[in-house]
């Protein structure tokens, strides 16, 4: 099996190294490779049956080998990335504004790393983590919230006056980034098909996460979990949760080269999503403000 494994590893590495995937996170790259394996299975089966690939191996086994190698290669690249993300916001300097009890940053980091490790164990949670991880990695909160605080419009008002967070733009961005990384945690104990779209499920998920992530500020966990709830029907949803939801979705904005006559990718994404805000359960005013920021910056 070793020669086959080596060839499967070569195919996996080759796919992940494709230039069209440049700029994506390892999980996004893996996602693209999985989409290919699922969507074009017949063509890939014919290719992998070729003499220089995995001849004589049934498609299921060949596919399984390639998947294993894809995952191994992805995990190899993911390790340092996740560690870097956890470390970036691992000081939890926003926690003082959220609760009186001081938090142990080191303990929080350990719990976050453990949670992320568990999320990477199943295909379902890996897929769910892909977009929020990309949003945190590309620092969408950092880029946008800085300007939200500068212009002091809807988002700033919602964060500081309604949610009453006494945080600066950097700390707010840090809070949202941590919420993004924790957001997928609700899927650890959820049955397939339940995405946490109702408050009861969210409450249960929050209680479970609080039990597992004892050191983390509750407000962060709450933002992470409540980000799965639609804004429509939940008007009291925290602004940080709404932001977490829209940034997690915004990471799906197609990263394309500028096209003459078209708006930039992020501006287009915010604009289209704003028109479907109710459908997606997002806060339309928030999306409109983000669209304005992206448009002003040519993003």
């Amino acid at each position, binding site marked *: 099996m070793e020669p086959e494994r080596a060839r499967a590893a070569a*195919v996996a590495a080759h796919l992940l190294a494709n230039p069209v995937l440049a700029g994506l996170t390892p999980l996004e790259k893996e996602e693209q490779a999985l989409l*290919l394996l699922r969507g074009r299975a017949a063509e890939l089966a014919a290719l992998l049956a070729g003499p220089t690939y995995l001849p004589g191996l049934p498609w299921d086994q060949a596919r399984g080998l390639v998947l294993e190698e894809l995952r191994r290669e992805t995990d190899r690249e993911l390790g340092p990335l996740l560690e870097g993300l956890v470390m970036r916001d691992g000081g939890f300097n926003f926690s003082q504004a959220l609760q009186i009890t001081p938090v142990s940053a080191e303990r929080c980091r350990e719990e976050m790393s453990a949670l992320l490790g568990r999320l990477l164990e199943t295909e379902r949670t890996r897929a769910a983590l892909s977009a929020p991880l990309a949003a945190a990695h590309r620092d969408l909160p950092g880029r946008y919230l800085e300007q939200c605080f500068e212009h002091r419009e809807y988002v700033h008002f919602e964060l500081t006056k309604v949610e009453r967070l006494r945080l600066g733009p950097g700390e707010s961005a840090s809070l949202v980034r941590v919420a993004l990384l924790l957001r997928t945690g609700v899927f650890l104990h959820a049955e397939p098909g339940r995405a946490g779209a109702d408050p009861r499920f969210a409450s249960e998920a929050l209680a479970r996460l609080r039990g597992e992530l004892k050191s983390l500020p509750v407000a962060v966990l709450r933002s992470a979990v409540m980000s799965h709830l639609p804004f429509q029907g939940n008007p009291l949803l925290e602004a940080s949760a709404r932001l977490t939801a829209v940034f997690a979705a915004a990471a799906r904005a197609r990263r*394309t080269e500028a096209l*003459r*006559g078209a708006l930039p990718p992020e501006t*287009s994404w915010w604009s*289209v999503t704003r028109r479907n805000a109710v459908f997606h359960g997002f806060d339309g005013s928030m999306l409109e403000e983000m669209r304005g920021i992206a448009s002003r910056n040519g993003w």
Partner: protein
Amino acid sequence: MTRRFTVAAGILAAVILLAVAQAVLEDVSALAGWPAGPRQLLRLAGFFLDLFFTIEFLARLGLAFGERRAGRYLVRERGWLDFLTGVPLLVLVSGPAAAGLMLGPTLLHSLALDTLGVLTAVRVARALRLLRPARLAAGLLPTASGMAARHASLLALLGSAVLALGLAVLAVSGPRRPGLESELARRQDLSAEHLRQATIRPARSPAGRSPTGMSAMSAMSAMPEAMVQADPSLLVVREGGATLYSRHPDAVYEREFAPGDYRYVQAGDLELFFDTRAAARETAAQSLLFQALVLLLLLVLYLLYAPHFARTVSDPLEVMRRGLAEESFNLEVRVPETHGGEEVFRLAREYNERLLPLKDRSRQGASESLLSPQDARLDAPGAGEG
């Protein structure tokens, strides 16, 4: 587009640019009064360029004949433009000029190429040079960028054709309408007539002498200096092979005068040569002005109009086409405030506000890979990249 075709198109573009430069330099040389040597070299260069365009046209026509699409080439693929910018110029302008340079100016006379009709055709043919830059724009510039390039090239061709027609009318009407050319010709004819009268008067004497007893030679030598001064274009007066008067030494004629720089007039027994370079300078100035107008027109069309057309018509259409054709394409059309009410942008608004959100809703959860099965081939391009 194959590499061979790209190279051929590049060579053709370079030759067209050379031809434009040659035409400009030829006019500049006439205007600035360059010596005969460099001007003859420029004419010779013009001959070879015209020969190239003629051969290129014949080759294209031959290929089109072979593929049974000669009509299509001549009409729809602008073969007529290839013809007009090559064959007439070679046959009527640069070919005879080159023959004159190589075989002597008397050849033109013996072939009756200096008759009024031919000279008029030559003047019209020279105006056809103005169409060459339009050909460069039409055939070789960005054909891939579609509608904007096609519209700009059509306007370039129409504008150049109008300017070429204007230059042709100016050139043809030159000897007939008030202007330097007709005035010079009138003065020269007058000078010739005066000289003829001066030499006839002695001939009428029964003894073959004038009343004062002067021969033609002595009549000439007695011609008032004022008459020569009055017509500075008078270069040489000859009678029976003998030069009666010459404004310059022979070396000056050899150095400064090329075929076509002088006008030959026979007045009785006298042969007169007049300097025509002043009229040629006026013609060159007109031609230069029209060439500058053509180039300016092309610059305006390609630097201002084509990008504007692309921004307001073809680019929005291309964005909408991709939005319709590609499942995951979701970029909105940029709608400028100043043109928002135009048809294209009204359509773009519908695309932005209806189609894209509809696509977004219908694609919820669906996704397609950026990769293709070919990307799994280890020998595919990009192996080891990233």
